[in-house]
């Protein structure tokens, strides 16, 4: 229903703006309903302003900035309808070191409420995980080994 959409949109827009600020360390962002001939034609644009830069459509940002803004939207929707766990598959691939740092900080803030599972090749991301599941392939069949990092035990 239209009312339901508008209520969800308002909350998600707010979440998106907040998550964007956390991931970019500042700046502003908003979702904007774009006009279409019919209600079914209307779309949503992401209008973003990274810190120190001018306001522009997300499509004009750099590769890493776009990925971070899109992640802010997806996490914004997740926070509207949170679930017991959240799997993020290599979302850190296009990010520089300091953006990976802000990403991991966001995850650590949300971790008490949500079991995060981060699939990654990035060493900085691995550093915030108390447990790592290492997957290997032997004879084209997948195997898993887990490694736990406690304060008590040295890393395996």
């Amino acid at each position, binding site marked *: 229903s239209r009312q339901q959409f508008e209520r969800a949109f308002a909350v998600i827009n707010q979440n998106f703006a907040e998550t964007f600020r956390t991931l970019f360390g500042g700046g502003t962002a908003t979702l904007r309903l774009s006009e279409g001939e019919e209600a*079914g034609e209307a779309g*949503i644009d992401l209008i973003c302003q990274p810190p120190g830069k001018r306001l522009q459509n997300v499509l004009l940002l750099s590769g890493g900035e776009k990925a971070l803004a899109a992640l802010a939207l997806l996490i914004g929707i997740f926070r509207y*309808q949170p679930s017991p766990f959240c799997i993020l598959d*290599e979302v850190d691939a296009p990010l520089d070191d300091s953006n990976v740092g802000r990403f991991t900080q966001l995850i650590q803030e949300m971790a008490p409420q949500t079991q995060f599972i*981060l699939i990654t090749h990035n060493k900085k991301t691995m550093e915030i995980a108390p*447990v790592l599941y*290492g997957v290997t*392939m032997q004879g084209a069949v*997948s195997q*898993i080994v887990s490694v736990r990092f406690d304060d008590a035990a040295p890393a395996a």
Partner: protein
Amino acid sequence: LRLQKVELVGFKSFAERTRIVFNGSGVAGVVGPNGCGKSNISDAILWVLGEQSAKTLRSSRMADCIFNGTATRPPTNLAEVTLTLVDPEAEKTAGEAAAEAPAETVPAGQEAGAGAEAGRSDKKRKNRLNLRILPGEVVVTRRLYRDGTSEYYLNGELCRLRDIQELFMGTGLGPESYAIIEQGRIGQILSSRPSDRRAIIEEAA
């Protein structure tokens, strides 16, 4: 509800029964070389939650999700994934669940519910899959046979796909869930038309 464990066998590259246990120890990382099977784990979880589009699972048909063999190992006839969630309130009274190893490939020949749990009382096992269900546990199982037959189980009892989808509605794990952001999903959001992006919000609403 919190995530307790995921068990898969015969699903994509996981030919052998594999158990991944989460102990509420915080952020979990999944690492390994390209092509070793990390994204397949996330496909398995999407699948057991009721995903019906093979395309979302990076396959052309659902049967592609069944382990299709190697040069030295024949294909299997069955793909099975079991997801266990637990209600923290009910679990406090149980206490024994914490004893399992966090991840292991279960030695061949062991069936669901056997192995490390064999020594425990069989009193609780009056369900079709012979699973031991602890207090507060919600166990969802999905099976696909190579002949095309599909089966769904809730706490070890046969059910319909719809029962699983209804169970999870409103928990953030329903059909419009954003709990799983697949590799490439971010690129998809950006390259989609504005009306597709609007559809994303409409789904979540």
